């Protein structure tokens, strides 16, 4: 690569890696794994940067989604040792807020993978259903149903914990979710 090509790649990484990493994080529920998969995708893009014309972000998003899906398939065959928790750079939160986040993250991770992917790609990434269907190698109807079910589950969790957060601290005996957020072993 010449300097200008390298510069363009660097600019792309500098300006878009945060957004891409966040997509990977929501798809995997694991910050370290998301970093790893994104780095892998970027390394592939680096090698073939000159051949990626036009819209590198679209290419990266597609490649990243495919990489995540490949990882899911791989893990079915070869479970990995869990990595350490990786939310260490999280900003401190109000306890109630952290509680909601922890519950939402746990619920996101507990979703079937295709539901999770459909929610993230359709609603967070705002991709058209047709594109999500292509990425996930399924029909538009499947995308709709997966996204709907996943979203419904997340709504329920959010509603439950929003209500819980509003209740007085001493008002009930119902067990609360752990505040400790661990991000490993999401895929089972």
């Amino acid at each position, binding site marked *: 690569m010449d300097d200008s090509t390298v510069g363009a790649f660097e600019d792309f990484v500098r300006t878009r890696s945060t957004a891409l990493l966040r997509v990977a994080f929501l798809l995997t529920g694991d910050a370290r794994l998301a970093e790893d998969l994104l780095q892998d995708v970027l*390394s592939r893009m680096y090698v073939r940067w000159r051949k990626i014309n036009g819209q590198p972000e679209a290419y990266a998003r597609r490649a990243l989604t495919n990489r995540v899906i*490949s990882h899911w398939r791989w893990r079915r065959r070869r479970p990995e040792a869990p990595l350490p928790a990786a939310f260490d750079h999280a900003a401190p939160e109000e306890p109630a807020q952290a509680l909601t986040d922890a519950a939402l993250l746990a619920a996101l991770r507990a979703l079937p993978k295709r539901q999770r992917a459909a929610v993230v790609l359709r609603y967070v990434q705002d991709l058209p259903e047709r594109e999500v269907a292509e990425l996930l190698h399924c029909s538009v109807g499947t995308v709709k149903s997966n996204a709907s079910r996943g979203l419904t589950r997340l709504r329920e969790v959010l509603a439950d914990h929003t209500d819980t957060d509003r209740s007085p601290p001493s008002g009930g005996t119902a067990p609360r979710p752990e505040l400790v957020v661990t991000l490993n072993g999401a895929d089972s």
Partner: protein
Amino acid sequence: MSIDGDTATVVDRLNHLADRVTPPPDLLGGARRRARHRRHRRQVITAGVALLALVGGGVAVQARPWAGRADHVAPTAARTARSLLDQPTRGDLAGSPGYLAQVGTAWLAALPANRPKGSTATNRQDLRGKPHVVWAGNTPSGAAAIVVQEFDVPRLDVPAGATVPTDMFGPHLAIGYLGPGRNGAPTVLDSTQAPFTQPALFGFFLGAQRSTLVLLDPDAPVNYSLGFRYRQDGTVDRGWRVATPRDGATVLTVPGGTDQRAIVAVLADTPSPSEFSERPGEFVLANHADASTLPSINGGHTYSRLEWNQSQWALPDRTAAEKAWHLTLAPNPTSEQVRALWNKATGGRYTDPYTDGAAFSQWFAVGVTPDGHRFVVGDRQLGHQPSQLYGAWQDAHGGLSTLYGGPVTPGAALPVRLRLPGGQGWVVAAKGAQLSWHGTGGTAWTDAGTDAALLPTAATQVRVTVNGHSTDVTLAS
């Protein structure tokens, strides 16, 4: 897409969760390292082209890992990957059939039985023949081995419009690197693949702290470097050493505190690569420690580059600077042109083509001095060492030389202080600061504007004022 309020709330909360994740500082460097591993499987680009571009002012060629050889030397014909299948086992454990059998068993057991869909990852389904241990020996970190086996890379669908190397698919060599596991038995630490025709340049780290490096002997001279340092003039010194293999491999002990990401081994006759080009003749080093595997070793990286995003200051004033640039560059010095000149001055001996994580300057102070020199000042971080301050210095005839200002400290009151040659003054910069100066014996402060300034050589102190708080900085005499 129109979404209802509940959905928007969920999406907002998901975005909030994701907002707490930020890329690691080494993301770019890590991607480049992986790209190198990936390129290992591609056809070797013939050396002899893309040699180091000499810096405009006639700066000498970069220090090279080989000595006394002309430029444009093709790499020595090292042993090819394919030939390893026929090579007898070497190493002091070559005569231990029990250990060799354990290596073969561990190698196969570590691989998935079937081809992962859509992947060319090594798997038992696509292996051919039998595992062959090419080297097995005792090291300071325990018994180690390198096992190889023919691997038929399955042909994948290639995206429309994409081109792939001719040797992307088909016969390859799968290479497994083994060291002692928790119970002391041989365990696969990492694996790579290489086309048959590529040189057999394989090495790997092992040990709890990755303190042992094994380089398979390619039957050709090999040099290695444990890292680089900056000389007083800002040039980079790799401190190349000659590898001395014994019985099939060179076993090195990596000193504690070494940044393993900076370790390089190359065929001794390989021409120095131009920056960012392919690097034929370089070993692929597997299982090195990175921030995700062993943060205690290599996790200390932070960006020390000055994050003065997209800043460009014309000194001493815009009109004069633009007029000066008009002479040799374009009507207005665009960022690309400024960057190109600065890159030219800071290439060659001033950079390290074996470092993947180069973080280039996000700002430039450009201008013209009273005697007509043009300058571009910026900083650059190589790998995980502190960012360094450099200047391009160009005379009226286009002659270019390089100025070096040492490491920068982003948190300092005045991070940029570079003395220009010939009594042409100082370039100083502190983004967002109000700058003023005075000389020896003077007490009155002379305003020098904001962000950056070209100060006369008589300046001895700079006052840096940010949000009403002032710090006085003494310029070195």
